């Protein structure tokens, strides 16, 4: 006769095996995580290598050149250079900007080609703090998008699915207010929480950055007004995050299912945001149709000192349009079959 533990375990396993979400998370996800991650990293790496191989950094040459430039570097004639090579009597000097990936590649190629037999002097001529500000300009938009999604996910799941599980949705829907009012109200609440979380996190990140910069004696060449300039787009991003989270939660039947769906949606949007911080990604470089990537690129451009008004409009329009579409769909899915 089997021990009761066996019966309990058997029943529990049967329960688990019949739950699609648990199976996805505990079986399929672990099975495909590592192959998927390795495949993704390989793709990114080959893209990066392809980009680097195809790149011909422009270099200004000064002094009497005693050797031609290496093949993978071209002399800047009528376009601005990313590095400068100066031939002197007893040495060769390379000036580059550590804040510019293309300039760093130019430096590496020149060093490889000229290191022997010429003695090299290599200088970073970027203004103090520029390298750090470039990193900040990439990281801040990414943090904003990621935070807006994470901050909105749980309030959205709580507002939609927990409301349904507790029976409070039925209480609300049995009142005279039309159905869309409840979703709009939930959206306002989720967006408010998200905005608060995003604003608090940006402030905290800014204070921490300044503190760390002071501690290590580094400078950040970033105009604080630029942070204000991206705030409206950050607000729209937070609203968009709230809409996506509500959309992900609306069709689900349980808290757990909603968490899984919302996590998947958040991951997908995060990947879009990551595209916007890739080194080759540039504003208007074909990424304009990717809404979140475009928003990240626009915020990045503002932080780097540009004023991309037209692209800001495009990014804002995309976020608004997709946000409205998400809410419309969520309204359809919130309670199928009920009357308005």
């Amino acid at each position, binding site marked *: 006769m089997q021990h009761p533990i066996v019966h309990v375990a058997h029943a529990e396993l049967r329960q688990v095996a019949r739950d699609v979400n648990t199976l996805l998370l505990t079986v399929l996800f672990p099975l495909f995580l590592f192959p998927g991650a390795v495949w993704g990293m390989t793709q990114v790496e080959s893209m990066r290598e392809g980009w680097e191989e195809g790149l011909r950094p422009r270099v200004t040459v000064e002094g009497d050149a005693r050797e031609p430039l290496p093949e993978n570097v071209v002399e800047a004639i009528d376009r601005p250079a990313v590095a400068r090579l100066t031939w002197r009597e007893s040495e060769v000097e390379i000036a580059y900007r550590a804040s510019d990936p293309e300039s760093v590649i130019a430096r590496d190629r020149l060093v490889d080609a000229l290191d022997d037999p010429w003695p090299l002097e290599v200088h970073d001529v970027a203004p103090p703090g520029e390298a750090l500000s470039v990193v900040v300009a990439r990281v801040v938009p990414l943090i904003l998008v990621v935070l807006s999604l994470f901050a909105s996910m749980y309030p959205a799941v709580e507002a939609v699915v927990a409301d349904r599980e507790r029976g409070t949705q*039925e*209480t609300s*829907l*049995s*009142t*005279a*207010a039309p159905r869309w009012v409840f979703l709009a109200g939930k959206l306002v609440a989720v967006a408010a929480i998200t905005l608060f979380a995003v604003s608090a996190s940006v402030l905290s990140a800014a204070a921490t950055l300044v503190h760390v910069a002071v501690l290590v004696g580094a400078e950040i060449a970033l105009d604080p007004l630029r942070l204000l300039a991206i705030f409206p787009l950050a607000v729209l991003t937070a609203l968009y995050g709230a809409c996506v989270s509500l959309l992900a939660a609306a069709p689900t039947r349980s808290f757990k299912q909603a968490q899984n769906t919302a996590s998947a949606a958040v991951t997908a949007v995060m990947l879009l945001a990551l595209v916007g911080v890739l080194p080759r990604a540039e504003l208007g470089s074909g990424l304009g149709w990717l809404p979140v990537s475009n928003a990240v690129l626009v915020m990045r451009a503002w932080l780097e000192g540009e004023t991309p008004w037209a692209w800001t409009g495009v990014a804002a329009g995309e976020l608004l349009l997709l946000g409205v579409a998400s809410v419309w769909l969520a309204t359809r899915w919130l309670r199928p*079959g*009920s*009357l308005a």
Partner: protein
Amino acid sequence: MIEVEGLTRRFHDRELGTITAVDHVNFRADPGEIVGLLGPNGAGKTTTMRMLATLIAPDEGTARVNGLDVRQDAAEVRRSIGYLSASTGLYGRLTAREVLEYVARLQGCPDAAARADALVERFEIERFSHVTCDRLSTGMRQKVNIARALVHDPPVLIFDEPTAGLDVLVAQQLFTVLEEARAAGKCVLYSTHIMGEAERLCSRVVVIHGGRVRAETSMDELRSRAPDGRLETAFIDLVAGPSA
């Protein structure tokens, strides 16, 4: 006050196929009466009531509540009814009074705060009106829920097994509320499994089984159908056998 004609609702299930939960149901309930909707589990009572409360749409047929069509005037129907079921919950982190005021506002009451206060007094819940609902006992929570259904003083009450899990004292208070509503000329549709409740409250009953109406008659007439004159016997005779 409630007129139901040919009301039908089907559900689609992956394993069971298409299920007709409510199949061309007809009945009526008038002002000043409590009509009992009786039937075994899965008979279609809750689906019928949810259609009347406009929480789900009928596939076929019509229903009018307080003279309003449930399809055409859904919002006005909801304003005309007080709906209570086992699955209408309360916001756990709002206080009893906050819930009443919130629902009164959604129902469009111009004096929501005053209505909430009046119901707090009427249901003698002053002592715990400022306690969040998740800290209330089942009985207290149901008291608040009943008050919630009445907060906008609707002419029609649709109560689906409202005494589930209640102790006898709270149940008695609910019966008093319903009897007062009847005396005030309101129309009450009341679903229950408990024959004693139906006998006490209802002047007429609609017996539903397998989604179809098996009887719509007065309580006295239904009782007289049984050899022993008991409602329970008459009910069992009606619902015995296959459901469809």
